[in-house]
């Protein structure tokens, strides 16, 4: 049983920005973020009646969005592996250029730096990437992230800390390249 049209419109108005921005931060592509937003709302339309209110609706929507993004990345990576053996498609350019993404919500003076940051965020593991993005880009508190990721708060603390350490290491390696360019 799907929800009625006015309820769905209200749901979209309330959560579309959240879903779109999480997907945008995760996938770093406007087109992909739009596709994921569509997929999330279609799933909400068909399965909202299954929502058991064990968690807040917002938390549930966050989970659906993150899972959709992870599935999307896995699918893209499998396509990328396929390109090694098969014919190259137009999507390949898009996949390879993922680190050149300029986030439309980033301040103009930070665009170049943020592009570098988003590029190395992609090199993190799934959980570290999720925890870091939700914490540093979406601005959620660690208890909120723990609820979304179904982990303990200490695990989230550790994930965010480890993510920062890894990012610092990778950035210090990139610093030499930056200095040579300068």
């Amino acid at each position, binding site marked *: 049983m799907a929800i009625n049209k006015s309820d769905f419109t209200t749901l979209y108005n309330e959560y579309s*920005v959240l879903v779109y921005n999480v997907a945008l931060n995760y996938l770093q592509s406007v087109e992909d973020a*739009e596709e994921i937003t569509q997929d999330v709302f279609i799933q909400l339309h068909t399965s909202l009646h299954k929502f058991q209110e064990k968690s807040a609706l917002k938390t549930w929507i966050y989970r659906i969005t993150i899972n959709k993004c992870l599935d999307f990345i896995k699918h893209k990576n499998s396509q990328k592996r396929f390109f090694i053996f098969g014919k190259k498609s137009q999507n390949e350019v898009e996949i390879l250029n993922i680190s050149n993404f300029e*986030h439309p919500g980033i*301040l103009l003076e*930070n665009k170049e*730096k943020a592009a570098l*940051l988003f590029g190395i965020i992609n090199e993190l593991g799934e959980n570290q990437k999720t925890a870091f993005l939700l914490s*540093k880009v979406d601005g959620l508190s660690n208890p909120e992230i723990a609820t979304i990721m179904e982990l303990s708060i200490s695990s989230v603390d550790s994930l965010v800390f480890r993510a920062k350490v890894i990012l*610092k290491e990778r950035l210090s390696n990139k610093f030499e390249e930056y200095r040579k360019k300068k």
Partner: protein
Amino acid sequence: MEANNWTNDILNSSEGITKVIPDTLLFSKIQNRISIQNSVSSQWIWIAAASFTILVSLNIKMLLSNTTKTTAPTETIISSVSNSNQLY
């Protein structure tokens, strides 16, 4: 020191990020996909039902034709071979 400052600048570059508003057409795209999904699903139900009916009717036809069938030509050859006991 310089490396440290640069690293921190990069890590803090997402500060002041603003929420991006999705394209205004996105909602109508979602509604279109929902309506297509609904129409496609009912269409597939009808196709599945029609395929099943055809399959069942073909099976019934085959069963009926088997019961009324007379001796097949292969059976005639086998019986003539076994009567004469000659294999060449």
